[in-house]
């Protein structure tokens, strides 16, 4: 923070107090203008840029976004109805910050990290204004294991204690990045609240379990590593065709109803990340409710624990204040980085980054800034870049590996990808999963267009699949070696591309007019589409497809193609092959073969061979 990280300490304690009880009457300005969420102030003294302030008699939460002489502009994170000029604005002396510590996992917060469950308990079903509840429960006691002892020399980012936060997440208490020193006091293991001092350093710095971090500043790490480990998602079109790496950044653009949210939910459910930060940014309330009601019931295939035990939700729905929507993305990414710094692989979903960009536009418009394309402020591109650059695989300050993968949904007006948000996003992401209205209309889900989408991680991940990994435990089969991964993928892509070319001809002459070998390609492409690319999120079996199953399934289809091609070359008519009894089975294997009964796929493959053998012997 601007006043040094040592400020953390006292700041944390104070924030907790002032959110609950009275604020000290530190008036930093007087309101002279109100326009929606933007408030102008005069007589401004002792205020800082990006300072967290309380606005008016109801103490609405706000942030100073512009300071000029004695005037300031504040963006207010709550509805300003009834606010009047002449009212006072109170300073906190601190930058708007995210509170970090045990108690985040499994919770749902709004865009400025207010705990929505507790707000509901205190204020009822509708969100009240001025509900200043601290994000973390200051009274709860946590079982803390202290890892350091008096005399230890610690560097910034060092892990000093651990807390079993949920059954799957061990919370690691870290020294702030710019604090180091010798331990002069270390508490013994025991039950502590987030404000108890766990460790004291020789410089007087006190480590508590609660800390703060300014939302708009990225957290430091030792160094960036090249992405080389896949984030295995259990979604075939992604893992097999357009993979994302741990620490990778991806965008899912698509018109309304094409499946962005469904895909984000699927990734949040089934990715082999340690922790999921899911940000509902300007989208529907019911979608957050759905996560809240489904996730606790769903079991992580890798840990056997409830998915909620590894999920943090940030919900700033479309009808919640627009300024808080702007902040929600930063709140999410800061929390993600914090867990990354503990050595976790975190995946963050942002649905939808377009609503965030629109919040920027709305605020910028009210500030009467000069607009660039389509009314968006000129800094749209740099904000997007800053955000996606916070993703990555890193070596943390404490020497561990951790990552933040980012998957951002993009909602282009009219589904037209040439608009500014999609275009700029494309510059900063390395996976582009383009959703297609036609596919969605035909209920081909996920409606990811295989010709328009791409992943730049393929080359970086090949090696990993070639080698496999030592750590195959608990990866849902993802750690298994699969040296043929690349070859298989490329082969299938070729077929799909060839099919697209042939379709253009078939649309003019009918596919019957094509020669058998080309019609075979159309047939096999159909198998790829129906039997492999389509994946029903609602099907109990098909919702998650382990890597090993993906490999076997694709092998079967390609094997079918190879053998059929050979037959055709020998002059066997296609009609002999298209009547195979096994074809409907191939089309349905995704859901008829349970994920723990993969031997059924070997049996299917055997039956396919038998059918081919029969035809072959007929023609010999």
């Amino acid at each position, binding site marked *: 923070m601007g006043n040094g990280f040592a400020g953390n300490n006292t700041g944390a304690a104070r924030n907790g107090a002032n959110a609950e009880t009275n604020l000290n009457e530190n008036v930093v300005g007087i309101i002279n203008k109100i326009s929606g969420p933007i408030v102008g102030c005069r007589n401004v003294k002792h205020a800082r840029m990006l300072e967290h302030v309380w606005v008016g008699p109801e103490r609405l939460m706000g942030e100073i976004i512009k300071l000029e002489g004695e005037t300031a502009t504040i963006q207010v994170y709550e509805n300003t109805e009834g606010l009047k000029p002449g009212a006072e604005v109170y300073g906190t002396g601190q930058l708007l910050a995210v509170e970090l510590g045990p108690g985040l996992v499994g919770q749902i917060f709004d865009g400025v990290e207010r705990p929505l469950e507790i707000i509901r308990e205190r204020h009822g079903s509708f969100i009240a204004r001025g509900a200043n509840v601290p994000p973390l429960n200051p009274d709860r006691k946590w079982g803390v294991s202290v890892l350091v002892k008096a005399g230890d020399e610690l560097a910034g980012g060092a892990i000093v204690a651990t807390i079993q936060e949920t059954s799957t997440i061990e919370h690691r208490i870290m020294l702030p990045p710019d604090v180091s020193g010798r331990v002069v006091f270390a508490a013994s293991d025991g039950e502590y609240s987030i404000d108890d001092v766990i460790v004291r350093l020789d410089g007087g710095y006190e480590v508590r379990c609660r800390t703060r971090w300014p939302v708009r500043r990225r957290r430091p790490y030792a160094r960036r590593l090249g992405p080389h480990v896949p984030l295995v998602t259990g979604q075939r079109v992604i893992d097999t065709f357009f993979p994302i790496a741990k620490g990778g950044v991806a965008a899912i653009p698509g*018109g309304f109803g094409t499946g962005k949210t469904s895909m984000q939910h699927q990734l949040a459910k089934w990715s082999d990340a340690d922790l999921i930060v899911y940000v509902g940014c300007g989208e529907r309330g019911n979608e957050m409710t759905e996560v809240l009601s489904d996730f606790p019931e769903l079991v992580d295939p890798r840990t056997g624990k409830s998915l909620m035990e590894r999920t943090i939700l940030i919900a700033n729905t479309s009808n919640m204040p627009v300024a808080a929507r702007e902040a929600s993305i930063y709140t999410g990414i800061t929390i993600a980085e914090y867990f990354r710094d503990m050595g976790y692989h975190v995946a963050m979903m942002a649905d939808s980054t377009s609503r965030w960009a629109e919040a920027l536009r709305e605020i910028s418009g009210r500030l009467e800034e000069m607009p660039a394309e389509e009314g968006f402020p000129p800094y749209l591109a740099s904000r997007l870049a800053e955000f996606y650059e916070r993703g990555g695989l890193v070596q943390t300050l404490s020497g561990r590996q951790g990552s933040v993968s980012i998957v951002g949904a993009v909602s282009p007006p009219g589904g037209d990808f040439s608009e500014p948000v999609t275009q700029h996003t494309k510059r900063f992401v390395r996976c582009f999963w383009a959703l297609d209205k036609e596919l969605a209309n035909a209920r081909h889900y996920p409606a990811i267009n295989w010709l328009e989408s791409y992943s730049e991680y393929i080359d970086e991940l090949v090696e990993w699949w070639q080698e496999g990994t030592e750590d195959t435990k608990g990866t849902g089969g993802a750690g298994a070696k699969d040296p043929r991964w690349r070859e298989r993928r490329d082969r299938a892509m070729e077929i799909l591309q060839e099919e697209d070319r042939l379709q253009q001809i078939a649309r003019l002459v009918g596919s019957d007019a094509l020669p058998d070998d080309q019609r075979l390609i159309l047939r096999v492409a159909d198998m790829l589409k129906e039997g492999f690319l389509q994946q029903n999120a609602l099907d109990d079996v098909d919702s998650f497809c382990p890597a090993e199953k993906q490999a076997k399934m694709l092998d079967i289809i390609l094997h079918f193609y190879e053998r059929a091609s050979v037959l055709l070359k020998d002059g066997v008519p296609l009609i002999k092959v298209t009547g195979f009894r096994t074809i409907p089975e191939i089309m349905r294997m995704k859901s008829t073969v349970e994920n723990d009964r993969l031997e059924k796929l070997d049996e299917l493959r055997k039956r396919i061979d038998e059918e081919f053998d029969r035809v072959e012997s007929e023609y010999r």
Partner: protein
Amino acid sequence: MIEEQEREYLGTSRLFGPILAVEKVSGVGQDEMVEVVEPDGRVRLGRVLEVSEDMAIVQVFEGTAGLVAKTTRVRFTGHPLRIPVSRDMLGRVFDYLARPLDGGPAPITDDLRGVEGSAINPTAREYPRDYIQTGISAIDGMNTLVRGQKLPIFSGSGLPHDALAAQIARQARVKGQEGDFAIIFAAMGVKHDTAEFFRRSLEESGVLRNTIMFLNLADDPPVERLVTPRSALTMAEFLAFEADMHVLVIMTDMTNYAEALREISSVRGELPSRKGYPGYLYSDLASIYERAGRIRGKRGSITQLPILTMPNDDINHPVPDLTGYITEGQIVLSRDLYHKGIYPPIDVLPSLSRLMKDGIGEGMTRGDHPNVASQLYAAYSRVKAVRSLAAVIGEEELSEVDKAYLKFGEEFERRFLKQEPDEDRSMEQTLDLAWHMLALLPRDELHRVSQEQIEKYMPGKDNPPRNPAAAGRPGAEGKDTGADAGKDTVAVR
């Protein structure tokens, strides 16, 4: 928390369009309700849009026509726009701010509610799961409506969206739950005839006394339209969450609403975004549409059925586009189907119900429902491809399979989609009919339904169709060559 304190000022500094500015004000709050009084005592209502220390910008609902800057008095009421709410208002007709239009007395209640409402805390929502049977196959079978859903009708001028909405309002019911229900009708800039059509239709089906109408008709001031849906939803929230009623809110026409918003925005000189609509159109529409749903621990629900006409039938126009991004699906009407004489002319492919997935299937509608719906979509989208192929090479040149698809397409439109405006099909009937349609296709084209489901539901030799007309299924059955030989693979794309 606005202190209820009135302040009155004489004279305005500027009058432009529906907006006036008052200088040297103090103690005026954002969004405060304003009374604008002419010398003869006539009162118009307004709302504070923006306020600074020495000036308030006020939006006047009835417009500023005829006001004289010097003599106009502006009274700031100290409270936001609000309406009375009570159960006694059922059966009545009101204006945009719940003042009687039916000649009856003003509602007697002290219960006044701000029309803006507040956001439902996402943790307080209950995920909607109870499906509503509308008796319309295209909806029940393929785009099932759920209690608490917001599902708009995307239409075009001249298409029968009103008839469809009225049919839904008449026929909608939830299996096994009769409960208290109410219908709220919010008209925004529609013709008098439209409002009258709804009134009569609701009257004929005997539900008028469960209905409240909020009318802003075509010749009423456009700016009032900005309040109409909010008043309607404020009423709906009261009935649903305090009086335990299941409320269906029909709002028409959202395009008129958006145009009024555009008008105000441009008068204020705001920076326009697409097609001149303000950049905050999305957030503004969301503040309306998100007021649908269910709340944990409350018995009632708010289901929204907004209607909007797509200018030029263009689904990418900002109003349908942004609506689709907020609502939980959409029912899209097609001019082509309408011209073919099909009512309701629901274009199923771009239509969608997002909440359908949790409301249908085993134990709710029928086990085969999700797969059947998905199969119909796949088949009908193939029909579109086959039709364009037929247009190029001629129908005779099509393969047997493609011909089957053509036949399926015709039957699907004529028998599954098409029904009478008073025909109320049960869910069973709709699903059985769907199987009759699928029976027109070769069996190995049906990958989305399971083998067991085919055996159980497919009308066939051992499973004779209830309607013999559906039995004419070409070739393919049982033998692998036949139709399959000519199989071609126009993809779903």
